[in-house]
């Protein structure tokens, strides 16, 4: 299925010659348009350079990041590193993830992601679902259904909790408390609460989430669970952080760590 609906929206359908990038009047673009135009230019360059090797180019939005591209090469392609080097020569838009695989390797996107360090977000848990339901095919075949959707929610959540304990405790909680980076720490704890909520909601088939409204979505399914009370306490702590009555960021940071630990413990019990 070459050039179906989604890429028509992006303006690739009328590409007159494969080496020519689409004409975009950047002067009159909004920020969203600019992001879209960047995607279009990158995709056009990809097609021009790599067309014989490509099976598909897909884009996915992501609730926690700016999303990214899944670039699928034909199974018979040897020397994937050289092809990936070509992808980078096409100047990918900054801050967008790039996943390069052969078609037969697409299932690997459903396997666990790296338990990453602070400031990094593991996209893996929502990548497949976001691609399948909200993603677009920018070029070539629609292979979105070839990425398996995992249903072992208990394992997904247990892995997330373990990753959080292994990485956040040492590299974020202790590090930033020791460096007296209290506000940075509280902000990171807030993010961790939300990432955990996002994973917990997958057990209820809720994948279409947004960072800002995640707590409300979470409350719909976990209102009678202890985790909601713990989140409520953290939310209150955070909301009073910048008021005149709360000058003691040291105490607030320690309390935030305690509440995250309590939340992790309660979620762990929930998975069991």
């Amino acid at each position, binding site marked *: 299925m070459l050039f179906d609906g989604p890429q028509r929206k992006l303006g690739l359908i009328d590409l007159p010659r494969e080496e020519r990038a689409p004409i975009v009047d950047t002067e009159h673009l909004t920020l969203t348009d600019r992001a879209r135009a960047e995607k279009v230019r990158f995709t056009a360059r990809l097609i021009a350079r790599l067309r014989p090797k490509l099976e598909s180019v897909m884009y996915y939005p992501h609730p926690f990041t700016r999303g990214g591209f899944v670039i699928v090469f034909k199974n018979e392609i040897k020397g*994937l*590193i050289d092809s*990936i*080097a070509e*992808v*980078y*020569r096409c100047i990918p838009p900054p801050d967008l993830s*790039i*996943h*390069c*695989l052969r078609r037969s*390797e*697409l*299932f*690997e996107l*459903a*396997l*666990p*992601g*790296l*338990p990453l360090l602070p400031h990094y977000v593991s996209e*893996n848990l929502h990548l*497949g679902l976001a691609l399948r339901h909200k993603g677009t095919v920018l070029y070539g075949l629609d292979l979105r*259904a*070839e*990425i*398996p*959707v*995992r*249903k*072992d929610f*208990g*394992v997904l959540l*247990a*892995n997330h909790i*373990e*990753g959080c*304990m*292994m990485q956040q*405790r*040492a*590299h974020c909680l*202790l*590090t930033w*408390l*020791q460096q007296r980076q209290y506000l940075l720490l509280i902000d990171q704890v807030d993010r961790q609460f939300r990432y955990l909520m996002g994973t917990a909601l997958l057990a209820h088939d809720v994948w279409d989430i947004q960072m800002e409204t995640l707590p409300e979505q979470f409350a719909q399914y976990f209102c009678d669970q202890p985790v909601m009370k713990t989140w409520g306490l953290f939310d209150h702590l955070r909301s009073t952080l910048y008021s005149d009555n709360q000058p003691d960021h040291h105490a607030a940071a*320690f*309390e935030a*760590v*305690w509440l995250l*630990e*309590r939340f992790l*413990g309660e979620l762990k019990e929930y998975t069991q």
Partner: protein
Amino acid sequence: MNVTMADYDNALKGFLDAVDPMKGDIITVLLFGSMARGDVRPGQSDVLDAFVFFEPTVFKDRERFLRNLEIMITACDRLAQTGLDYHPFVYWENVDLISALFLPPCRSLGSSQIVFGKEMRHTVDASRASRFLAGRIFFASRRYGHQLVYLLSKPELTAGDLARITEELARAQKTIPLLACFTMGIWPGEADIIREFRQALPELDISVIDKVKILRHQKDSPDPEYLRQLLREMLDFVETLHDQLIVKLTEAGSTERTLLPDGATGAYG
């Protein structure tokens, strides 16, 4: 700063002194990494690879937890003040189950030391979910490595680029053989990782692992183009390893069915 072994010994002593007030709540303090193996490279090795295992009840009691957290921060302060390259230790609430990624050092008597409390290295294990994760992370690591490919053709490598390549090569040298073992269902002790890895994949050329090991022991800054070449070799090595793992898993049945849990839907769903 002229760093000696004594600085590392003092760092450990200072750490143990600092955590002393919470010993009533600690089951075990386990040291791993170069300090436990006895192969510290003064000035290059960091502090402190350690697990502090607490009584699980500490995590149910706010006052107790916060008291211990304050003490842990004091211990971190002591480590930070040593002037050595420092990162915090891990604290954990279950002496029986840890992350499967840490089983090799924590179960190897030669690669870890109990510096306080109960001996637990013969009984510590990981949950099924944790082993599932550890057995599949190789695939995400491979894609993580793909992000470095742009450095192969970058005209001028900056100091930051060179530092990143060095760091990522060291990380790959340490973790890729281990993660591949996990993928094959092999759970080696830390000292046996390379032997088990070679044994499982005898046809695989792993010379790049040795080259990076040598690089890590060099005191002089390596030539940028040599670093770039080594990065290329490592990326190619991971690709070849990936393909061999897939072949090996396919021999045991469907790769997807072997790696994905029951109930995943997609290509075969």
